[in-house]
C-alpha cells in the first residue's frame, strides 16, 4: 500500500521539484550531523601565504618569474610540470608588476596564474564536463531565442 502511494507521488511530475527539495533537505541534514567530525586541512589545498609588500599582492606565492614555484598539491605526481604555470608572467603583466603595487589581481587573472594551474593541472576531466555544461546551456538559450525570431 505504502509503495503504491509512494510511486503515485513520484510518477506525478508536478511533484518533481518537491521531491527534489525533500531529497536536498535530507542530504543537508545528514551533512549537518557529520560537520563536527570534519577536519580542516588547509595545508593540503594550495595554501595561501599573503605578502602585503609584493606587487602581486594577494596572489604572491613565491618563486621566481619565468622559473618554477614549489606548489603544495594533493597529487603532484599527476602533473610533472607543476609550478611552471604559476611562476610564468606574460611580458605585459611583468611590466605591470614593475610599474605599480596595486595591480596584483589583474596580473594573476592573466593566462598563466595560480588559477589556471589548479584548473588545468589538478581538476582533470572535471574541467571538460563543466565547459560542456556551459556550452549546452548556451546552445539551448541561443536556439530558443533564434526560433522565436524566425516565427
Amino acid at each position: 500500500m505504502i509503495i503504491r502511494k509512494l510511486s503515485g507521488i513520484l510518477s506525478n511530475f508536478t511533484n518533481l521539484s518537491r521531491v527534489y527539495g525533500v531529497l536536498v533537505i535530507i542530504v543537508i541534514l545528514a551533512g549537518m550531523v557529520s560537520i563536527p567530525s570534519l577536519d580542516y586541512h588547509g595545508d593540503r589545498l594550495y595554501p595561501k601565504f599573503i605578502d602585503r609588500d609584493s606587487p602581486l599582492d594577494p596572489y604572491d606565492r613565491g618563486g621566481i618569474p619565468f622559473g618554477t614555484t614549489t606548489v603544495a598539491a594533493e597529487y603532484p605526481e599527476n602533473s610533472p610540470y607543476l609550478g611552471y604555470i604559476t611562476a610564468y608572467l606574460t611580458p605585459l603583466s611583468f611590466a605591470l608588476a614593475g610599474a605599480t603595487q596595486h595591480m596584483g589581481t589583474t596580473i594573476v587573472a592573466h593566462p598563466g596564474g595560480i588559477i589556471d594551474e589548479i584548473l588545468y593541472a589538478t581538476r582533470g576531466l572535471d574541467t571538460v564536463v563543466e565547459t560542456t555544461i556551459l556550452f549546452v546551456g548556451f546552445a539551448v538559450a541561443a536556439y530558443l531565442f533564434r526560433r522565436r525570431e524566425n516565427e
Partner: protein
Amino acid sequence: MNAEFIIGFGLIILGTVATAWPSPKDYITRLINLELPAFGILLVMLSFDETIALLTFIAVTAISTFLFVRVIEKKEGIP
C-alpha cells in the same frame, strides 16, 4: 574571524530568510532581497582575500539581475 566575515555571515543569514519569505510576495521584492545574500557573500570573499572571485561575482550578479528583470518584464507585460 574578522569583521568582514562576521558582517557577511549575518547578511547571508538575514538575506536568506528575507528571500525565502518576502513580505509583499511578488517578484520584484524577492529579486531585491536576493541582493542581500549576494552582498554577504562578497564580504565573505573579501575576508578570505579571494579578489578574482569577488570581481567575477560582481559582474555575474549584474548580469543575472538583468536576466531576471527581462523575464519579469515579459511576465507582467501585455500579451
